[in-house]
């Protein structure tokens, strides 16, 4: 990318621009970034730093000193550890499922003719237009004891007693996969669409069968899209609240639910803040890994 600025006609042909203009450039850049930086500072950085501070306070409000006790309490409590484990397991399972289920759709989407592409695209983003509450409610209607699946199975005489499909973990997985699948498909499709078709044709000409062509050529070329989709899906699952509450029927405690409980119901902000910081650091580790991956990928 060129180093020129929007006001490049101001710069004369001189090889070294006068210092005055450099100053104006920096000033202009600052003005462009100022509103965004202000929003991020007021709405993200400052609140998070405050939360970090609260998680280290011995009391809230009116602290008398700083302590790591709340972190110790969370990380040594078997109940909390189970919840942390379940949260990250849920995120892992949902990420894996969306990647496996979404990849063929993204592939097909990116390679379709423009008319069909338009239709598939609409089919994928249309669910995003429907309130998350309603989509989750839809699943409870489908899966509940009096729900559609049980009604059909009973009507067919397959079962007498309703199956308990709203049993917790897997119904939450289903709901999360349903909500996040479009994000994965769009992320992967963005990268797959840019793959040079001649690579795949070359593989075919050189005698690769479809499976080999997929594993050795298509997959490595799409890996960046899968990675960015996975980061989005993983992070959104880790912080999700509505779906675990509504589809888990109170039986699937994840970190988001526990943090909410700790802060709003028990009004224990420091412990809740410590749990929140642990959740955040988990997310940051994933993001850092993604950053490393991108850098390595770019170098290759």
């Amino acid at each position, binding site marked *: 990318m060129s180093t020129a*600025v*929007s*006001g*490049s*006609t101001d710069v004369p042909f001189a090889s070294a621009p006068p210092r005055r203009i450099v100053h104006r450039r920096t000033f202009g*850049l600052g*003005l*462009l*970034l*100022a509103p*965004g930086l*202000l929003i*991020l500072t*007021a*709405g*993200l950085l400052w*609140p998070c730093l405050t*939360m970090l501070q609260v998680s280290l306070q011995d009391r809230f409000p009116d602290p008398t000193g700083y302590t790591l006790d709340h972190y110790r309490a969370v990380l040594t409590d078997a109940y909390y550890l189970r919840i942390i484990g379940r949260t990250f397991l849920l995120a892992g399972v949902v990420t894996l499922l969306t990647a496996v289920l979404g990849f*063929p759709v993204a*592939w*097909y*989407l990116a*390679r*379709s003719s423009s008319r069909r*592409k*338009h239709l598939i*695209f609409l*089919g*994928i983003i*249309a*669910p995003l237009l*429907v*309130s998350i*509450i*309603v989509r989750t*409610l839809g699943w409870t*209607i*489908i899966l509940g004891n*009096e*729900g*559609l699946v049980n009604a059909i199975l009973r009507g067919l005489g397959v079962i007498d007693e309703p199956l308990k499909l709203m049993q917790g973990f897997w119904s939450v997985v289903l709901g999360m996969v*349903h909500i996040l*699948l479009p994000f994965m498909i769009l992320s992967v499709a963005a990268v797959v669409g840019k793959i040079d078709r001649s690579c795949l*044709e070359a593989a075919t000409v050189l005698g690769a069968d479809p499976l080999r062509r997929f594993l050795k050529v298509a997959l490595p070329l799409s890996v960046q899209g899968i990675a960015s989709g996975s980061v*989005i899906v993983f*992070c*959104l699952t880790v912080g*999700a*609240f*509505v779906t675990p509450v*509504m589809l888990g029927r109170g039986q699937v405690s994840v970190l*988001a639910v526990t*943090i*909410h409980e700790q802060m709003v119901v028990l009004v224990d902000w420091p412990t809740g*803040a410590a749990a929140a*910081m642990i*959740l*955040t650091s988990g*997310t940051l580790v994933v993001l850092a890994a993604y*950053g490393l991956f991108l850098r390595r990928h770019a170098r290759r």
Partner: protein
Amino acid sequence: MAAHDLPAPPLRTVPRGERLLAAYVALVILFLALPVLIVVPLAFSSDVSLTFPPRGVSLRWFANIWARPEFLSAFALSAAVALVATGISMVAGVLAAIAFVRHTFPGRDALLMLFMTPLVFPAIVLAAALALVMTPLGLLRSFWGLALAHVVLTLPYILRTAVATLSEIDRSYQEAAHTLGADRWQAFRHVTLPMLRPGLLAGATFALIISFDEFTVSMFLVGPGVMTLPLEMYNYSEFTLDPTLAAISTVLLALTCLAILIIERLVGLGKQFGG
């Protein structure tokens, strides 16, 4: 891959693998549409409970929306927050996008990543953190507190589409404007902005939807009298499970479709994402 992409197609029929893939894609789209396909018919149900298929047809649940002023005021608040937040995000996002695309400066990539953080930041943490700092400021349970939170959440969506669109615009147009005597503002207003418009509209549509449907962050910031529609719907579902919520969603769906249709007519929204 479509059959006509092969170097020399030996057959004119679609390969079996291709047909299988198409069937699979159709299945996935059905899966994505399933809850909606259930919810919309339920809105017209005459039953008091949420059973599918409905046993009779009525419009009583639509009437019930009107009978409950809390849904209408929640709708008004959600719409106002979404519009204000998207507006602010658009100004901040476009300015930042110009900085990111047209300038190089140290730490640019890191800063861009920071701007994108709200996209993946755990909503529950952001919610609690915002509640923590807004309480002493009196912003809790206020319109502007909600609006600020939604600006943070929508900014990445606007910025992403603005950066993508801006990188596609050839700089020479702008330089031509300068050569013809336009100043920076005139060049932006009459050359860059019109070319940005389709991408911006797409980003704004997404931002509006994200804001309108936002749940977790708002949960910590709302209170009696200041309630967004998703929260009001959730509260309702905690105590009453009748088709009222299905009716609300059907109304929202109709409104969204209308809005999308209008925008699609104006700029071709699908092209912005599908291309």
